[in-house]
């Protein structure tokens, strides 16, 4: 899709094309083409053109994992070139399958398509990893651990976007909310000496940005994109100002690196690869799972969720049946900003670092991208956040490889990756992103 498309306005040419040949949607060739090109590139670059002879190791079981009798092998070495080619060819097979189905007008829809996409993605990434870690060891567990660390703020930010955009308020100010959350967590945590107090303060602090966004976007009906952009500037300026004055004058009192304790669930945390990722984390990570689950249920299975979505899709209809549009939007924007504040807390007290100038470093915008790629759905947003975080984790991990090993991929390309993926997603390669119909449109009661 990607096309971000508004459901209420079917376009002339598109509509005609669709009726004339219902079996093949417009641009049916787009997704198979992109996947095929990617797969062929993988075969060539990761396999055929790469020098042979090297090996890539995959670390399955790390020391300390549950491993009765050493059943699970430690490092599994594979020949780099052969493995990369085989994996890429498998990915190509998936793409070909899509071609066949799409050309026959039976493009798998819904879950089947997503499953195929995920399969393609995993094969492609494994092929890439095999190539990128030439002569080194892929520590899957460590990689996933880093990914989780990086994904949490993105996921919280994306959830903030889901909350407010489902109610029809565009939230570009995620960056500012993250920053305020991070700032508030450190400030209050340092002054009180307790990371837990910081955890409480982060959402409250982020509420300031949420309230400003709501005041201007809903109250004064200023263009929402503008408000968001300006609020980000405001948040960066304000936090940097206090960082440069108050925090610098007395870092011991106002800017101490605190850390929330890691909560380890015994036994489960010893499972190879995923154990530590899922069961040895700070409370923020567990909170993220809970919020994603709760929000999914609340948005799609409860009366509250129906009302929120009604306000985001057709505020007038919602108003007619007695839903208070303004109040719903206000509360959702506030709720969203509080959630983003937790994401900000992850950046500081979640990882044990002090506050730094502009420390959100564009994460709010990646969260925005994750929300879109996740199609305004909490679970989708989480998956997209994990995907983007994986690229980032890979970049960090690859840059720390010993010299002489690895394929020497510039870290900048991996950093770019989330944005390129989003660009493709928004151009409609992956499927349709349906924007809430009234997103960004102020509601004026008659």
């Amino acid at each position, binding site marked *: 899709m990607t096309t971000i498309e508004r459901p209420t306005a079917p376009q002339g040419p598109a509509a005609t094309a669709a009726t004339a040949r219902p079996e093949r949607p417009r641009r049916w060739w787009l997704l198979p083409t992109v996947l095929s090109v990617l797969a062929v590139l993988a075969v060539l670059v990761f396999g055929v053109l790469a020098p042979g002879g090297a090996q890539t190791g995959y670390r399955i079981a790390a020391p300390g994992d549950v491993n009765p009798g050493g059943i699970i092998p430690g490092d599994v070495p594979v020949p780099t070139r052969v493995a990369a080619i085989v994996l890429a060819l498998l990915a190509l097979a998936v793409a070909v399958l899509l071609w066949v189905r799409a050309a026959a007008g039976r493009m798998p829809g819904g879950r089947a398509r997503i499953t195929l996409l995920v399969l393609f993605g995993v094969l492609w990434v494994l092929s890439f990893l095999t190539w990128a870690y030439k002569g080194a060891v892929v520590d899957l567990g460590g990689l996933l651990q880093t990914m989780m660390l990086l994904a949490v703020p993105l996921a919280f930010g994306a959830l903030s976007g889901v909350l407010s955009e489902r109610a029809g308020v565009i939230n570009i100010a995620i960056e500012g909310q993250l920053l305020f959350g991070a700032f508030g967590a450190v400030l209050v945590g340092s002054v009180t000496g307790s990371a837990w107090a910081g955890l409480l303060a982060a959402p409250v602090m982020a509420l300031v940005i949420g309230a400003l966004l709501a005041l201007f976007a809903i109250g004064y009906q200023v*263009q929402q994109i503008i408000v968001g952009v*300006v609020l980000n500037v405001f948040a960066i300026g304000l936090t940097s100002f206090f960082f440069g004055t108050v925090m610098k004058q007395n870092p011991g009192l106002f800017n101490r690196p605190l850390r929330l304790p890691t909560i380890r669930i015994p036994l489960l945390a010893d499972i190879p690869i995923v154990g530590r990722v899922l069961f040895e984390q700070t409370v923020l990570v567990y909170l993220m799972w809970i919020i994603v689950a709760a929000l999914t249920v609340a948005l799609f299975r409860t009366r509250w969720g129906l009302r929120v979505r009604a306000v985001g899709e057709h505020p007038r209809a919602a108003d007619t049946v007695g839903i208070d549009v303004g109040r719903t939007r206000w509360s959702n924007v506030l709720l969203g900003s509080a959630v983003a504040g937790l994401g900000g807390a992850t950046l500081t007290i979640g990882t044990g670092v002090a506050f730094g100038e502009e420390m959100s470093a564009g994460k709010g915008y990646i969260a925005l991208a994750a929300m879109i790629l996740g199609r305004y759905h909490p679970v989708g947003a989480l998956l997209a956040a994990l995907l983007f975080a994986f690229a980032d984790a890979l970049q960090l991990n690859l840059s720390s490889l010993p010299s002489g090993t690895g394929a020497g991929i510039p870290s900048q390309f991996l950093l770019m990756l989330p944005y390129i993926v989003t660009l493709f997603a928004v151009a409609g390669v992956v499927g349709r992103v349906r924007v809430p119909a009234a997103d960004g449109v102020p509601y004026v009661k008659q």
Partner: protein
Amino acid sequence: MSASIDGEVRPVAPGTAVQPGDPGTPGETPDAVSGPGLAQRIARGNVFVVVLAFVFAFVVGSILILVSDAELRTAVGYFFARPSDTFSAGWSAISEAYAAMFRGSIFDYQAASRVADDLRERGGSGTYVLLPALARGIKPLLETLTVATPLIIASVGMAVSFRSGLFNIGGTGQLIVGAAAAGYVGFAVPLPPVLHLLVCLVVGIVAGGLYGGIAGFLKARFGSSEVISTIMLNWIATYGLAFALTTTAFTGSNKSQPTSPSVLSSARLPLIAGSQFRLNLGLLIALLAIVFLWWLMSRSTIGFRFRAVGSNPRAAEVAGIDVGRSAVGVMVVAGALVGLAGAVHVLGTEHRLTGSIAGSIGFDAITVALLGRSGPIGILLAGILFAALSTGGRFMETSQGVPIDLVQVIQALVVLFIAAPPLVRFLVGLRRIDQPGRATRVRAARRRAVTTEPESAGTADEGDGEPVAETPPDDAGPPGASGQHTAAPTDEDTTRGGQER
């Protein structure tokens, strides 16, 4: 995610608050009929709001200075023993900071009088003292103009897209691409003097235009929201430049440093105010860009098409304008202008590429375009103003230790206040001048229709949620970035079945 979808309707012009009222109804300007008093007209005027917006922003800035001032905090510690200390510490913190801002951006009277004293001591008099002193004094002003140059050009690019109904958030990316392309030709391709400069500028324009065009193409072909794609393209350009600065092609011999070699002197924009100032020919280019904006949007056919699409895409389509092609055209022109800004920035002041070459110009340009209402004169003034704030802020940081980030806060607040005139009037208690007699009418209406409820805390202020349909909306929706497009929400209504109203 943006308001507009599928390459189609862009309902609200950027920067424009939606006008709550129904334009065109007889009730629209009752005051014009009854003849409002002078006080009312002033209080409703845009200038009034702009001035107050600055006042409020600086008030907030003062509070921040107070909070962050260590001396003041100690004085507050013994406030009840000697309250005067608190007040004098506070006053000196604020006044010194703002005085530094003025000295750093407009006229450094201290340095000027120092130079004058020096010269007088050595026996000078008359113009021998006056001119050098004056030259020293206006140094900050010339520096402000230097900083304003790329900002103004970039804002002109932003204005083109805003007035055409596209939210180009991609200033940073287009600026980087333009700067990188122009800079590369500037240091890597030796050419004869004048030609070299021209080639560099053209390369910057073309690169920026192509980069902007990507977002336009994606919108026209696939209906992607330009807001998202330009934001993504910003980061892609940022990392792209970071990568380029690790390659030998861009860093030249010193590969360890992520900076490029200096632009050859043949490609530099000549200085126009003497060698002790950085002011360069870019200023002229900025003025030409302003004139170009005026010509493009007010005089040319293509600009008319852009504006038509911006204010009502559907009507434009019916009238035979290719909306998709217009989107590409707008983004190419906007990107080209921002790319030119990048080129001027590199060739005029920076001379070498660094990872942070774009600084905050890309985003500042958005705010400048908004502040200047996307008009030529507005942008010129707003650009100089913002540049003055940042050069003044830099001086304030070095001389008073107040971080320059304060300026960012002030700039953001100014834009927010200007975007919401009702808030400004509310803060000065002028709501009654806004709508004379409104309170009584509302009360009467409340009595009549008990069922109505204000829709939210914010909107209740302007009476949007009130039952009095004939209440004049006032300029609750300021013309915003583009005075022409306040009617846009209305056509949105018609196209979508009056969903919002």
